[in-house]
């Protein structure tokens, strides 16, 4: 304990600033309000810091830190409000493909708000549009209409150099790992740095650091074909982290792995989220993934978002038919 994580640090500096400017007054910090999630560990750190400050009286209105629920506004009784930082905002996103004159809708009017520090699950059955949705975030797919806002900047129209620079700040991992078979593990991890033009010594240092983090530094000189599936996914996670990303997009990251390996990969993702404050967007068709690591979730069905909210709420009381089916609450052969 005691580490103040990235996004909480942002929050804390705002709190400290306010406390400083109103020194001597007995402030009351109210963290109740409309629910917006941040990971439990981050919340713990914030509370711990508040206790250290001793100048503020934290009101949590019955919400225990482990519920991972925080407020969009950190309202101070003096009338100050602090807005939690939005990392990704998708506004009325639509995507249609046309093949030989036949239109196919992959996304229809999708709006989502993903906050800094979220592990945001997007769950749906095959063909629901999840993969297209996640690819719209880093513009591997260009939305037909609507906009993509990352960290306050509308990036929808980005191309060329601007787009490359944006993508460099968003890591991505894939179901089939998509490692480069002809490169060593270390060369795979440092690929994002190589294309940025970093020199070899720097990128190898960073690469070894990351391989240490994922527990594979002994495999640096080996090739992906010599590793197990779980190890390959760890390498691809290290690769996704190379550029110090703000966001990591996980496209069915555990769907090709057995259940034990899945758990270890999920733990690694959660650890990265907690320790580095990296926002995660997790695409999956497995409800277990949402249960284990996501704090918020959106359910996508037939190209539309049919339900979204705090993961705990949605899982406890699903309103959409498809969510109940994914939860196994509908008889499978009904």
């Amino acid at each position: 304990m005691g580490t103040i994580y990235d996004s909480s640090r942002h929050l804390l500096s705002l709190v400290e600033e306010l406390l400083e400017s109103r020194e001597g007054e007995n402030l009351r910090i109210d963290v109740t309000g409309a629910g917006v999630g941040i990971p439990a560990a981050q919340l713990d750190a914030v509370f711990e810091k508040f206790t250290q400050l001793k100048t503020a009286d934290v009101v949590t209105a019955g919400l225990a830190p482990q519920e991972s629920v925080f407020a969009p506004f950190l309202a101070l009784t003096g009338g100050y409000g602090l807005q939690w930082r939005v990392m990704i905002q998708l506004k009325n996103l639509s995507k249609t493909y046309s093949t030989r004159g036949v239109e196919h809708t992959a996304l229809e009017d999708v709006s989502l708000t993903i906050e800094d520090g979220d592990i945001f699950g997007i769950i749906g059955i095959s063909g629901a549009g999840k993969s297209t949705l996640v690819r719209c975030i880093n513009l591997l797919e260009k939305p037909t209409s609507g906009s993509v806002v990352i960290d306050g900047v509308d990036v929808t129209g980005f191309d060329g150099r601007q787009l490359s620079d944006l993508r460099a700040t968003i890591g991505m991992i894939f179901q089939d790992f998509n490692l480069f078979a002809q490169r060593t593990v270390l060369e795979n991890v440092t690929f994002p740095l190589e294309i940025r033009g970093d020199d070899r010594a720097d990128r190898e240092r960073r690469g070894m650091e990351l391989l240490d983090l994922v527990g594979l530094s002994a495999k640096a000189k080996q090739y992906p074909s010599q590793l197990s599936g779980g190890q390959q996914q760890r390498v691809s996670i290290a690769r996704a982290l190379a550029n110090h990303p703000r966001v990591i997009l996980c496209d069915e990251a555990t769907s090709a792995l057995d259940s034990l390996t899945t758990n270890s990969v999920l733990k690694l993702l959660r650890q990265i989220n907690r320790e580095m404050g990296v926002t995660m967007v997790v695409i999956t068709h497995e409800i277990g993934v949402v249960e284990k690591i996501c704090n918020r979730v959106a359910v996508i069905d037939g190209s539309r978002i049919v339900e979204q909210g705090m993961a705990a709420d949605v899982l406890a009381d699903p309103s959409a038919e498809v969510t109940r089916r994914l939860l196994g609450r509908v008889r499978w052969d009904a």
Partner: protein
Amino acid sequence: MREFFAEYGQLLIDGTLATLAMTFISTAITYVFGVPLGVLVTVTAPGSLKPHRGLNAVLGWIVNIGRSIPFIILLVALIPVTRLIVGTSLGTVGAIVPLVVAATPFVARMVESSLAELGPGVIEAALSYGASTWQVIWKVMLRESLPSIMRGVSITLITLVGYSAMAGAVGAGGLGDIAIRYGYYRYQDDVMIATIVILIILVQLIQMSGDLAARALDKRNR
């Protein structure tokens, strides 16, 4: 046997060297043109990195036309062009121009099929890390396909050994020339058989070293 080598040994050695020179020089030059052409055909294809229907169709046509013309016809038809480029249509040097023209479309197709073996996943991964089109081509497509392209090189070399023998018919020199002049026109079966044996050995050696090189390069299945 000794008499045979005393009489034809030098001839066969010179012929072998001429064939090797034609084959290797032509292959090297062919790849200079064939790889970019193959890459261009690949990346302009629909759904690829830089789709361009018009350019892709035109390149496809050029490659197909190049591959449709029988080599022996191309050889004769290109004589004025060869003279213009290298000053002569005879000898080893004169054979290189038609060999390169004939092999370039062939190599372009082989490079294209090597690149096609690469799944779209790794290209997408590279793009997702901010790689430019050029970086994807150079650092991902070509690098990941290198073992497969290497296998294509040995196929090309062997094809050009055959083509260069044909070029012998119109004065290119080399083993093909010897086989035709001595074996065909003068009914000297022993010389013809000797050239064939040498050609078989050449082809075997090229295939073997090509396979070795490809295997050494390929980091999969270790």
